[in-house]
Every structure is written in C-alpha cells, then in structure tokens.
C-alpha cells in the first residue's frame, strides 16, 4: 500500500494534554489512574479521567455541540498547533479535499443519561430541542471536528467499539488512494459516561484497582477517556512517522469475548504485515491492545507469540491511560509515533508480575531504544480487529 505520513498529531488523555505532557508522563512511569469519582458513579473501580473539561465549554456557532465528548475533542484540537497544521493543509489542498474520519463508541451519551433523569413525566419524551444530533448521535464527533476545523470534504464516524479510531486510519487511507480526498484528519474521542462504567461492571470486566495488563493477577480494565487526532497526507519524505500498513479482521466468535486462540487478532496482524510488505522480524515493538482482562490478554498473547515468538518486545499502555475504548487506537498510534521519534518502549508500571503462562516478550519496565517500526493493536466488542504499523518513512 501507499505510505501516508502522519504530518501532525496530538493526544489528550489522563496522561495530560498534548504531546509534551504525554511524553513526560510516559517516561515518568507513574499511572494517573485513580478511584472512580466520575459524576454519580458509585463503583469499586479506577478510571483514567481528563480533568478540567467542565471549565472548557464550546461556544459560538458550535454551541449546540457542547458536551463532554466534544469538549474533549476541542481540548485535543487546541494542543500542539494541530488547528494551525490543518489550516495550512487547507491552504495546500482546499477545505473540500480534506476528509474527517473520526471514531467513537459512545459519543456524548453522557448528556442523554443526565437528560433521562429529567424526562417530561407527562409525555416521557426528551425536549424537542435536546441536541441529539450534535451530542449523542454517533456522527456528532466527525461532524463537530469537520465544522471546528472548517473542512468540507468527506466525513464519517466509525463506531466499531474499541477498534473504532484504529479503523479511521484504514478508511482514510482508502479514500486518499481513490482520490476522494488528498489528506485526512483521523482519530477520535471517547469520554467517560455511566453507560460504559456500569456496562463493563455488569460484564464483570472492570478491575477494582488500577488495571494490570499481562499481570498474573490481572482482573479487568480501568476505563479511561481520551481524544487524539492525526493529519494523514501522502508521504512528504520529511523523515517523520508514516503509516506503513493496516490490517482488519473479524473474530466471528462472540459479542464480548475474543476468540480464545486469538485467530481474529492474528489475522489482523498478518494482514497489516502483508500490506506493509514486512515480516514479523521487521517490527521492533508491539503496542498491545492489552486491556488486562483474563481472557483478552491471554488471546492476544497467543496470537502475538505465534507471530513474534518470545523475541519482539511488547507492552500495553492501558495501565497508564486506562482503556479509552474507542479512542484507544489513536491514543496508542500516537504513543507508537512518540516511541519512534524519541526512541523508547513505554513501560507498563501497573504490571507487577508478568503472567508466566503468557508466552510473548512482555517488557513491563519499558526500554530506551531506537524503534524503526511499531505495530499497534486494537480489538473490540463485536469481534472487530485492526492492527496498524507505523515507522520512519
């Protein structure tokens, strides 16, 4: 496939807002996960929250889009000169030639959750002026980003649970290849809400303490929230980070459990390698999906060990960011890009004892080393999988 350059990117998560804060937090090896204090949630679990969103409303022409999810999008877009980079791209290509491919799993359902506590008792209806389209609807994230950046090209939200934002790279790449746009803003946002906190708790998939990926005593996920965006363009040969390949697959197994042998995961990784024209030995580090559930980590380990043996270092950064669900793909794409640019493998500080039953080379202490190519995995409910490969152009 054609290589596409990540000519600009940014991320905001519990680790901090923007690349500088994220890089410093990754290297500090301190997990910001904390006991759940989100709104009225009363659950024995930890969360990875982005603080300060309450004081960051959306005003002006886009005031109808004001909600936690779009606030996190706004905060993310305001970091690292991302808006200026997109404005420059508009100058090069025109607003109609830049697409928006944004992932989310729950968009702004949090605002609808609150509205349901105040339903009209007589009619049982939400007020007709409730901004469903601009907040709760899955398209709200792509729509908001397109308007906030003044773009007029193709726009779509991808919502395939925890694989959502990873898949935006694949969709954008195809759209650029077939001439529907010249550049694309990819990524997306997922924000804390009661639906996911109580839903994952009901599935008995949330850990009580901070999540411990690949730990022998791992007992579930810590839900987090994050936003991240990247500007994808045809390779400018500037020596930055490029998307070298992607692979998508389905598990065809179960709605909320991965295939126990990791068949779908393996297929996504193999397709990504084939698309990039690479062998497993060409990959220097695998950023795992690694959510810290018993079965999820075991299934991914099996697939990774079959491809990479006990050779290629791998780790999950979910102990640092929490599982940011639909946003995890872009968060980990940006972490992979930072690893390539700054030469390090991120640590997994909440992992105390790596599960001896797992066979891949899990590097919980991280490492300072040159990375040429990194694979990043994202797997979701419904069995949708997406693996991405990033590297120096």
């Amino acid at each position, binding site marked *: 496939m054609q290589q596409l350059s990540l000519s600009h990117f940014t991320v905001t998560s519990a680790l901090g807002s923007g690349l500088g804060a994220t890089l410093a937090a990754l290297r500090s090896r301190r997990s910001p996960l904390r006991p759940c204090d989100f709104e009225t949630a009363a659950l024995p679990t930890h969360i990875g929250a982005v603080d300060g969103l309450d004081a960051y409303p959306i005003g002006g022409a886009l005031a109808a889009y004001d909600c936690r999810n779009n606030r996190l999008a706004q905060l993310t877009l305001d970091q690292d000169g991302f808006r200026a980079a997109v404005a420059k791209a508009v100058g090069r290509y025109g607003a*109609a030639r830049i697409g928006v491919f944004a992932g989310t799993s729950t968009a702004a359902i949090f605002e609808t959750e609150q509205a349901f506590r105040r339903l009209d008792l007589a009619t049982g209806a939400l007020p007709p002026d409730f901004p469903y389209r601009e907040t709760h*609807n899955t398209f709200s994230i792509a729509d908001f980003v397109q308007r906030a950046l003044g773009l007029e090209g193709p726009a779509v*939200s991808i919502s395939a649970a925890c694989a959502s934002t990873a898949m935006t790279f694949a*969709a954008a790449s195809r759209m650029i290849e*077939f001439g529907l746009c010249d550049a694309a803003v990819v990524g997306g946002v997922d924000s804390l809400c009661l*639906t996911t906190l109580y839903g994952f708790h009901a599935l008995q998939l949330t850990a009580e303490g901070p999540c411990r990926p690949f730990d022998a005593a791992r007992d579930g996920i810590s839900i987090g929230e994050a936003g991240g965006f990247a500007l994808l363009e045809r390779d400018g040969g500037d020596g930055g980070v490029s998307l070298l390949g992607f692979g998508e697959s389905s598990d065809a197994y179960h709605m909320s459990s991965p295939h126990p042998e990791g068949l779908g995961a393996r297929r996504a990784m193999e397709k990504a390698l084939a698309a990039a024209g690479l062998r497993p030995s060409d990959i220097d580090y695998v950023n795992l999906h690694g959510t810290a559930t018993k079965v999820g980590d075991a299934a991914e380990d099996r697939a990774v060990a079959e491809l990479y043996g006990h050779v290629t270092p791998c780790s999950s950064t979910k102990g640092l960011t929490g599982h940011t669900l639909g946003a995890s793909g872009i968060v980990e794409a940006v972490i992979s890009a930072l690893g390539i640019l700054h030469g390090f493998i991120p640590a997994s500080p909440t992992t105390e004892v790596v599960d001896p039953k797992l066979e891949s080379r899990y590097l919980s202490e991280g490492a300072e080393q040159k990375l040429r190519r990194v694979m990043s995995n994202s797997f979701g409910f*419904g069995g949708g999988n997406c693996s991405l490969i990033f590297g120096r152009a």
Partner: protein
Amino acid sequence: MELYLEGIGLCAGGLPNWAESRDVLAGRSPYRSDELVMTASPLLPPAERRRTTDTVKLAMTVGSEAIAHAGLRAEDTASVFTSSGGDGRTITAILEVLASPEREVSPTRFHNSVHNAPAGYWSIATRCREASTSICAYDFSFAAGLLEAATRVLAERRATLLVAYDLPYPPALAACRPVAAPFGTGLVLAPERTARTLASLAVALRRPPVHETVLDDPALEALRAGVPAASALPLLLALARGDAGEVVVPYVADSGVAVHVNPVAYDR
C-alpha cells in the same frame, strides 16, 4: 469509481424483499405501506437468536438476501454496516436503568448497545473473519456507506457487502430524532463485471450545490425523506425499472454522492 452490483436485499413496510418489491418500485403496481414484522435469521445459533434485537434482525435479513442474490458465500465477503444512529430500543432501555436508583445494566443489553452489534452478530452467524466496519453519518449514512464500500471493493479487489438500516426510536428519543419507519437494504458490490453482474455503478463525490434525487410516488418519497437508510430508494427504483440514469444521494457538507446506474441483467 466503477463498480458492479451483484446482489440486492430489501426490507421495509410494504417492501418485504427485493424480488417481491420490484414491480412496486418500477411503478407497475401501487405501493402500500405495511407494518413490518421482523424475524431472527436462521443463520444464528438459537442462543444468539433469542438475544438479538430488531436492529440486528433487519440488518441480517437484508444482508442474507443480498449475499444469496449474488450467489456468494457470506463467509468470504467483507462487509460495511451503516446506520444513522445506534440501536434506539437497546440504548433507551440502558438509559432508563441508569436513571433508576439501582442502575442494574443488563450485560447482554450492554454488548448489544454498540453501534457494530449487527456486524458482530453477522460475522458470528456467517463465520466470516473478513474485515468489517460499522459507520454513521447521521442523515448521510447511506452515501457514506457507498463511499466506504466502494473504496474497500477497489482497494481489496474483492466483493463487499454494504448493509444500510434504520429503525424508529422509542418515544423519548423519537421526540428529538424522528425516524419514520424501519428500512434496510443490502448491496453486494464487486470490482469486476462477471456473469452475476446486475448493473454497473459509477460512483462519484459531487460538490455543492447538488440536487438530490426525489421520487414521484408520494408514499415512497415520504419513506425516502423520512428514513436516512431509505436514501437508497432512488437507486433501487432505477435498478427495478432497468433504466440507465443517474441518481444523487445527499452527503455531508451539502455535497452529494452521484451514482450512474447502467443495468445489464435487470431481469434477475
């Protein structure tokens, strides 16, 4: 983008499937809107059948019909699922529980609430491990699905199933998001002309100002205008009539997706 249509699925009130709806869509017999009764796909194992929602049933019905029409194996076919919103009934049930003191969310409801639930059930039922995506572009979700499926077909040089579906929301959400009726359609798109080709489709993005295709029949036009997935109707009418021509489907930012239809085997 040049594509070839190999199979069609359709399910809506008064339009029970493609074969039985062609005369209506071609204007040879009158359209009568009917209540739609959804049944679970026999492809699903019994345990999954009990847990599926109307959203999953509708998407699987039109997907199965399109795949069978094309004579393909679902197991080998990548898919694109597009809908203007999530599963309203499932999400409403969760929202009601979260607004109650107990907040006891059903685990099955929770995993059924994801936008890609139909894609997940489809892949389980058909044992398909090929790529699948689930997308949303509000009122423009059918056009977005066409672009996503078309670029996938051309990139992979393989047939891809596009499934577009929408159902009305329960009263609370329906007050701020009216969807007139259930509507689902499935299209199998392929990169090359084969013996199975029904029509060639030239798909292109059209800059504003665009004039979306509207329908002459008032009842069908009400369906088209009232349900985002029914944006597919002008294309389906052209296919049913067997006439060559262009239809324009509304897309984001006042743009449109133009489809030039050239039927080659409209009697199948």
